[in-house]
């Protein structure tokens, strides 16, 4: 029996010729990631186990991105614990305020992930790097502690769902629309424990930025990982951002998939996920008028330069609707700087938006845009659970940067035209 792309990467990381779905393996980790919320728990576990040094100071990375610049004393104490630990351990890729960005935008930008890698992160959206043809998945703090100590992680080899993409996305339709469309189709546990393997001639028409967005949202369908085949776009991206050599793994022609889902990209339309689950996908053909109080454009899902360009193009020379607060969060310092040089930041500020330093902030209801009771927000983020961005009776509508920008101007949920 052949192997899927994910299974190939897992086999290569546990010294086996082949692995089967359901098998539990101990795999070597190329990179182990933690953020300012999950790392303190990992440090405590690491120290309790009597560990005194990390397995490889180049292969452990900490990004302080959730509650930074620190929002209160307690979060400052947690960050300080990581700062002290990172210095003590000599962690090379430690990214603090001034250097940091939102972790899953930052690591590809820094060239820390290449095709064929096995990456774990104590953050559920670690699955983002599947866009580059790597196996990457979210784990917990104790897993991170174990990986910091040993360089290994236990994994159950996943079965797979294959998404065969044909055609090309229409204008104003982006990776986010496709991700929400798919989650709407299969549900928030439609890919539970499985890998989502994207393939087909349509892949080449999807930008790396959109692939990162789609792989990022794999967890919202319950998946272990989402993964794209490596093509010239991937190789160019990896070469541009780093010096490590990619390893190209391809699915075997006789690889087994539990299910194959055909998607004609040209049929995907602008999609919004209604509260309180990402699977509540709605299109503009059946949408009631929804007035909004806030718009957030940013996050690990949609805070890249391309996302800001899409939003700025829609907002250029216009004003956001009265009584709508629009928060723009470039995902990294580099993106912020490039957006500034391209004039995007001027466009946003002149339109009446605020622009924030990189942070996960409002996405998880941390800071920088918390919602009051009864308020509604259109966000380019990834979750719209009860209370996700603030009060339990507030509402988050997930959308692309284009829909978010159009909605900011209209004061209600609106399509990009």
């Amino acid at each position: 029996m052949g192997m899927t792309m994910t299974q190939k990467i897992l086999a290569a990381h546990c010294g086996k010729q082949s692995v089967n779905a359901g098998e539990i393996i101990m795999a070597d980790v190329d990179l182990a990631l933690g953020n300012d919320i999950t790392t303190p728990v990992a440090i405590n576990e690491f120290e309790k186990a009597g560990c005194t040094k990390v397995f490889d100071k180049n292969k452990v990375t900490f990004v302080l991105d959730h509650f930074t610049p620190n929002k209160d004393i307690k979060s400052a104490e947690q960050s300080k614990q990581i700062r002290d630990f990172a210095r003590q351990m000599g962690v090379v890729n430690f990214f603090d305020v001034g250097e940091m960005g939102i972790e899953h935008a930052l690591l590809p930008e820094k060239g820390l992930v290449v095709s064929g890698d096995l990456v774990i992160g104590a953050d559920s959206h670690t699955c983002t790097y599947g866009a580059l043809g790597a196996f990457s998945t979210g784990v917990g703090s104790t897993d991170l502690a174990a990986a910091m100590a040993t360089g290994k992680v236990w994994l159950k080899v996943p079965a797979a769902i294959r998404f065969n993409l044909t055609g090309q996305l229409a204008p104003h339709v982006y990776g986010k629309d496709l991700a929400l469309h798919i989650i709407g189709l299969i549900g928030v546990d439609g890919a539970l424990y499985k890998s989502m393997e994207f393939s087909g001639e349509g892949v080449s028409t999807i930008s790396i930025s959109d692939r990162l967005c789609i792989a990022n949202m794999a967890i919202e369908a319950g998946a272990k990982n989402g993964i794209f085949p490596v093509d010239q776009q991937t190789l160019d991206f990896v070469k541009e951002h780093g010096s490590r050599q990619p390893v190209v793994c391809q699915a075997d022609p006789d690889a087994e998939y539990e299910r194959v889902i055909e998607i004609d990209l040209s049929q995907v339309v602008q999609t919004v996920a209604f509260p309180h689950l990402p699977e509540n996908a709605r299109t503009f053909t059946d949408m009631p008028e929804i007035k909004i109080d806030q718009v957030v454009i940013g996050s690990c899902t949609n805070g890249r330069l391309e996302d800001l360009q899409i939003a700025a193009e829609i907002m250029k020379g216009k004003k956001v609707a009265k009584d709508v607060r629009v928060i723009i969060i470039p995902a990294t310092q580099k993106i912020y700087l490039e957006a500034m040089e391209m004039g995007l930041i001027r466009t946003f500020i002149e339109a009446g938006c605020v622009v924030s330093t990189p942070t996960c902030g409002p996405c998880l209801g941390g800071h920088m845009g918390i919602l009051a009771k009864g308020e509604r927000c259109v966000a380019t983020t990834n979750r719209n659970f009860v209370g996700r961005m603030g009060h339990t009776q507030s509402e988050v509508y997930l959308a692309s940067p284009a829909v978010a920008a159009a909605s900011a101007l209209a004061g209600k949920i609106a399509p990009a035209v």
Partner: protein
Amino acid sequence: MKLKGTVFKYGDNVDTDVIIPARYLNTHNHQELAAHCLEDLDSSFVQRVKQGDIIVAGSNFGSGSSREHAPIAIKASGVGAVVAKSFARIFYRNAINIGLPIVECDAEINEADQIEIDFDNGKLHDITKNQTWDFAPFPDFLQQIIAAGGLLKSISGGKA
């Protein structure tokens, strides 16, 4: 291992944001987290829960964020085990790694029922209804982690 307790019943897709909202993630103190366990789903849970009680839920329990604070909050609140039709995968591994007993079982159990879980024999018995369900035991590798008392203990020879 056997556990007996009173059931707190919830539905599908109980996510880690409602188990422990992000506004409380500025700490990882177990008791502080326990004080807000399930706050956004059931605000009276922490007042009502007693040592050894059991959460029974539908599919995809623990979906969303990877925050280990969620199983930590549940365990520190005194809950003895979580039974669900299915678990989100990161919650599943976090629970095993920190030693919170979980059972994947599609059983028809009601709020406030008394139930007993026999982990060694894979039996879930509803004492109130006098009905029993079977569940599959964990694979050997995971049983070793559970027996050691968590992942770090299993790799550090009991030091953690």
